[in-house]
Each structure stands twice: as C-alpha cells, then as structure tokens.
C-alpha cells in the first residue's frame, strides 16, 4: 500500500537524504502530482512522453531546491502545489524554447505570459535562473567510468577490491587512483 506523507514529513524526510525514505517520498509525489502535470502538458501541445520527461526534471528540481534551501515550508503553499507550479513554469519555458524554433506554440506562450502576475512569486524567482543546476547534472558531466567508480564506492559502499574486479580496473591500487582522479575532476567541475 502507498505510504502517505504530510508536507512536513516530505520536507524533513528529504533533508535526511536517506535513500529508502527519499524513494518512498518520490513514489508518493508521483502518485499525487503526475496525473495533473500530464494533463497540463498534454492539454498544452505536449505528448505523454513530454509529460514524463518534464515530471522527472521537476522532481529533480524540487529535490535540489530542498537540499539547497531554496524551498521553505509555508502554510500558504502545499508541496504538491509548489511542484505543479515548477512544472507549469518549466513547461512554459520549454514551449518558449520550441516556439523560438517553431512559431506554432507562440499563441499559448503569449497567453500564459499575459496571465503572469506583475510581481514574481518565489517559484518564479527560483526558475528565473538560466536552468536548475542540479547535482545530478554536474555529476553526469563526468565520464561514465568515473560515475560508476564513485557511485560504487560512495553510494553502494563497495570495497576498492570489488570495484576493481567489477569495473575491470585491474588492481585495488589502480581503482584507488581512478577514484582519486575522478574526485579531483568532480571538484574542478564544482568550481567551474
């Protein structure tokens, strides 16, 4: 049976960064928001596949906002409403991007622009950045081998010997050196 969460439990649960709890919250948010987001996208020139992609991006953005402290619980806004707002704005942005290549969606974009209030709300402020620079985006700039080594060591808690064997890195020392080089590369990415 689907576990349910209050907004406070979602907020606190995500801050623990515990994998099973984050996973359960993500499933709950999917259950609560996916249908509404899908309807919004498919009614505004998007396909089911667009809706699925958008929802993944929205949840990543939401997680990142929680961890970066950009989202704070407020009595006036529910978490699901906040997620829907992010989805709405991200889809609007996507449509504008498409409209610049293809004028077909211009009408919807203009219509939506006219509906926006003059003063930006907190959701708009966070979305006004060029794009949400998620940890995932940064991490995925590393080459695949580095991603595998770091994930195996830091997330799956595998030993260096096991990592060397599974990823074909030869000796344990080779695996350690690879891991070190990957960390250095990631640090550079963070500073760039």
């Amino acid at each position, binding site marked *: 049976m689907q576990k349910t969460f209050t907004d406070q439990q979602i907020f606190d649960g995500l801050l623990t*960064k515990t*994998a099973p709890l*984050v*996973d359960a919250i*993500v*499933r709950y948010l*999917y259950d609560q928001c*996916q249908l509404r987001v899908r309807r919004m996208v498919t009614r505004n020139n998007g396909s*089911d596949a667009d809706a*699925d992609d958008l*929802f*993944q991006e929205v*949840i*990543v953005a939401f*997680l*990142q906002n929680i*961890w970066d402290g950009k989202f704070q619980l407020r009595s006036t806004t529910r978490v699901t409403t906040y997620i829907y707002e992010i989805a709405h704005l991200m889809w609007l942005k996507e449509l504008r991007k498409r409209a610049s290549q293809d004028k077909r969606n211009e009408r919807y974009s203009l219509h939506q622009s006219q509906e926006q209030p003059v003063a930006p709300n907190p959701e708009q402020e966070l979305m006004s950045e060029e794009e949400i620079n*998620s*940890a*995932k985006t*940064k*991490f*995925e700039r590393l080459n695949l081998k580095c991603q595998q080594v*770091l*994930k195996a060591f*830091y*997330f799956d808690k595998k030993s260096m010997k096991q990592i060397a064997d599974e990823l074909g890195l030869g000796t344990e020392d080779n695996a*350690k*050196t690879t891991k*070190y080089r990957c*960390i*250095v590369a*990631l*640090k550079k990415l*963070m*500073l760039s």
Partner: protein
Amino acid sequence: MYCGVEETDAIMKRPIDKQQEHEWIEQYLSGEMTRDERKEVEMVMQADADFEKEVQLLKRTHELMKEAFLEQRAVATLRQLQRQSRQRTQRIRLVRRSLIGSVTAGFMLIVYLSVAPVVFPDSENDTSITHSLADESDTMAVAQKQVFNQFFEGQVHLIEGQYVLAVKNFETVVRTTDIRPYFREAAQWHLTVAYLKSGEPHKAERVYDQFSQCTDCEYPIRAVDRWKIWWQIKWAQWLK
C-alpha cells in the same frame, strides 16, 4: 612520506602525497578517525587556510555526490513508475477496444438477424418437392397439384407482402395429410415466416418449436436462417 615533526605516537600526520592527503581528509569527513586524529586534522585546518578550503570543498563534493545519486535514483524510480503506468494504460486500452469490438460485432449480428430476409431453398427447381407431379397423372396427382399450387401461391403472397393470404395458403398445405415429409417441412417453415410477418409471433413460435429438437428433418434450411427466424420471433414477441 609524512611531514610530521615527531613520530612519538601512532597518530597519522598530514601526508605530503596529494592522493594520500585526500584519503586522510576522507577519513576525517567520514568519522573514521579517533579523537586525537581528528584533533590533528583540525589543527592543520587552523594553521593552513588552503587546507581548510580543501577540506570544505571535499565535504561539498561528497554532499553533491550523495544528492546526485539520490536524484539519479529518483529518476530511475520515476521511469519505472511511468513504464508501469504506460503498460497499465495499454492493457486498459486493449480491453476497452476488445469490448467495443465485441459490442459492435454483437450489434451488427443483431441488426443482420433482424433485417436480413430469411432465405429458403429454391422450391421451383427442388425435385424433392415437384418430382411426384411428373410421375403420376391420375386423380391423386391432380389433388396434389392443387396442394403444390397452394404452396407456390403462398410463396408469391409472401413476396408481395400479402401475409394473411400466405398464411391461409400454407395452412392449407400443412393440413393436407397425403404429402411427403420434405414438402410438409418446407410448408411449415414458410408458414412460420408468414405468421411472423402477419403479426402472429406466438403461432410462429409454436411451428418453429417443432423443428428446434428435430434430428431427422429433411428440408435443408441453413442454420443462419434458423437464427434469423428465432431472433425475429423473439423480437416481435418482445415488441408486442
């Protein structure tokens, strides 16, 4: 390899080698050090601002990796849920299409059974009905010829839509005792349709029921025409 001043105890000093220094910081960040070892790292941090920055950067890097792994896992979970949802939707669509197809096919069948006319074998050229006319020329044959005439008149009345007259013709044929079973069956089937068309479905049903359990019937009426008659009787009874 270490730049420690003295090695009087087992406390690991700051390594000179960068990779080893990195591992030393990781041990500190992961809480794998003793209190004295932690104190040593913190002393170096206080003394060397660059080293402190390095520790903070690695700490942030660890946090970023954890967040990235959780976000990747979240996306994987969402993809799995979306795939399951798509499969569920496809199954629902398949069932819905099958149901619509079955209902449409059923409806078409009902329309066909209701509207399509019953087709009897061509009696004019059916030697099973007419051959005895040619063989005999006495008074018996004359009587039979009158019966055949009643039968063929009944068929004409059916075609012309004069169903009451058709009923009379076929009833006359059926009442005749000295006719072969094949011809009697042909007349009874025609009488069933005549009753049905003249608005007497109950009488039609009575005649039809005589054939429902028939195992040695000779008149070759097709199964689909039997269904048409049965359905049209039931439909007419329901409408009454």
